[in-house]
């Protein structure tokens, strides 16, 4: 029963919150839609925290998504031992990088009075959940080797079953508890997303690359001269 709630029901609740509350916040209170940067208050420690955190995490998330979206392609990518080892080592290094970076970011919020002053309760909750996520991830990478390979046959089909609205909780129920924690905690992050500063993850300014430098907005229709 607990398995069903955690692996079969909770992911839908989390997604519903993320989409429903996310849309509500975006339409009703777009003013609050940002990560509320604290670089202005403290820049040096943020450099050593934020930069490795974001770039390493983006790569790790990319690997998670690719292995989920195209399990067949991912499986053949890992076909040769050399590539498997390369990916394992890279993943491990990136994981440890995110862990160290996150610790730096947390210590920065704890120790710097100015940054501490702009940190809310939901920020602390988010940091705690992120710490659990990253720590469990690194622990899995170390203790249960070759995650790049077994993910494709366990987590990937589970996620697909969720997507097809036919949750197959057995895929996850048979995995070690630490993997279960990692998976449920991931959906906890999804659930927290619309309530926290995590909303910034969907603001990706790619449009900037294509637009002209200057933006001029006219109220009145201009006649072309």
């Amino acid at each position, binding site marked *: 029963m607990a398995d069903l709630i955690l692996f079969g029901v909770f992911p839908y609740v989390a997604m519903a919150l993320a989409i429903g509350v996310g849309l509500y916040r975006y339409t009703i209170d777009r*003013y609050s*839609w940002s990560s509320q940067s604290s670089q202005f*208050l403290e820049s040096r420690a943020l450099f050593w925290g934020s930069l490795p955190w974001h770039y390493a995490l983006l790569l790790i998330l990319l690997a998670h998504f690719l292995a989920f979206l195209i399990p067949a392609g991912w499986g053949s990518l890992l076909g040769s031992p050399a590539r498997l080892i390369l990916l394992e080592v890279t993943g491990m290094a990136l994981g440890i990088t995110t862990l160290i970076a996150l610790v730096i970011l947390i210590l920065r919020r704890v120790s710097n009075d100015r940054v501490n002053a702009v940190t809310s309760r939901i920020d602390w909750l988010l940091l705690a959940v992120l710490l659990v996520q990253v720590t469990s991830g690194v622990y899995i990478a170390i203790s249960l080797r070759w995650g790049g390979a077994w993910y494709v046959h366990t987590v990937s089909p589970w996620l697909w079953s969720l997507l097809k609205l036919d949750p197959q909780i057995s895929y996850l129920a048979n995995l070690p508890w630490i993997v279960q924690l990692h998976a449920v905690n991931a959906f906890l992050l999804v659930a927290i997303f619309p*309530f926290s500063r995590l909303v910034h993850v969907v*603001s990706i*300014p790619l449009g*900037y690359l294509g637009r002209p430098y200057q933006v001029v*907005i006219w109220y*009145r229709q201009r006649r072309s001269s």
Partner: protein
Amino acid sequence: MDIRAQVSSVFHLDKCIGCHTCSIACKNLWTDRRGNEYMWWNNVETKPGTGYPTKWEDQEKYHGGWERVGSQLRLKQGGKAATIGKIFHNPDLPTMDDYYEPFTYKYADLTNAPAGTDQPTARAVSMVSGKPMKIAAGPNWDDDLSGSNVYAANDPGVIELSAEQQQQLFAIEKMVMFHLPRICNHCSNPACVASCPSGAIYKRGEDGIVLINQDKCRGWRMCVSACPYKKTYYGWSSGKSEKCILCFPRQEAGEAPACFHSCVGRIRYLGVLLYDADKIEATAMKADGELAAAQREMILDPCDPEVLAAARAAGMAEQIIQAAQKSPIYKFVKQWGIALPLHPEFRTLPMLFYVPPLLPLLSTDHQGTQKLADDFFTSLEQARLPLMYLAGLFAGGNEEEVKAVYRRLIAVRLQRRAATVGDLAEAEVERARTISGLERDTLDAIYRMTSLTRIKERIVVPPLLREQAVEAGMDPEEYKQAMGFGSRKAPKRRW
């Protein structure tokens, strides 16, 4: 020709007494919220000095403004892809320590302290963290400290000067300074707009006011580092960038912006300029010393029939054209040529112009005492305030630009002295006029505008016609019984 109108300003620095009334007027209206305490959309600096934020003019430090790369203009902080790459940490962003940490005092302790043997004190506390702090800086920390080797000597413009010129500037009995009030320049080639990844910053087409859409701003702070004048500010509590809005709600109601209205010295002039937007890029590409002249070239004569025809063809409102014809700014910048942009070498084409200060200029060392120079025109080079310093501020290092302005200002003075005191030979006044290249009537007009005019002549707010513009775009009934203009919710984070 792409004719646009721009609400522009002139600040007459000879008249600025450094009273900060403008700063207070602005602060009380717009920036007295939490997270904005440190922001001074209008601030007054002492020059020579390091300014606010400290050394903002030093673009080797802050990488603000534009630079020429081959035949292209590029933001000094990097191109578009580089900007996005720096989104997780902006290396060029000034921190609060470059401005100052806002503070207050625990005044309640003075009355609430328990009885004891010593005097109760009101300790300084940070307005960010609320904890006791040591005050190390403020918004006008080097106010009037012109001779200071901590502040004035670190002025990026002073560092450029020779040791001899520096000595001349800081010799205690020759000390010289002037005040430099600064607001957003509402540039025609704004670097803040160009740097905004979310496209939240825009220039209003009808009047050229540069604004930040607060709902679109994602707090990426690229504008703060891109603006070479450091006139966009990050609100650390709201997580949004904010800047001077040239009091557009006041202007739309026909009133002068608060800092203009409150100016004690009446140094501020406001009016519409018409300019050719097709020339923006070519103008911004000119060499440092040519930028001021090129920008004047971009500004169009609002009485020229050709310009009028083009403006009407582009659909410019007749009221705007009329305001442009009455604009004191056009006279200062173009007709009289006595107002220059601040740091044109940043290449943002600022639309706020300054009449450089003449007062401290006209005295030289005469056997140990300060005396007015015998011949102003040949002694310009030996001025108390090195011309090179002023040229560095207002003309991209081109001393000829500054000299031309001073020759005109001196001619105004000589003509007025001959008229009121009468101790100058007419031949000498005539010589001054010839050298300045201005007619008697023009010099009188400059005198009138700088000393006698009333507010309606100094500040010609164009009818911005927003009500008509809004009506054209939407049903006016939509706002019936609703709130007026402005935020419908307090600018506060609720999530």
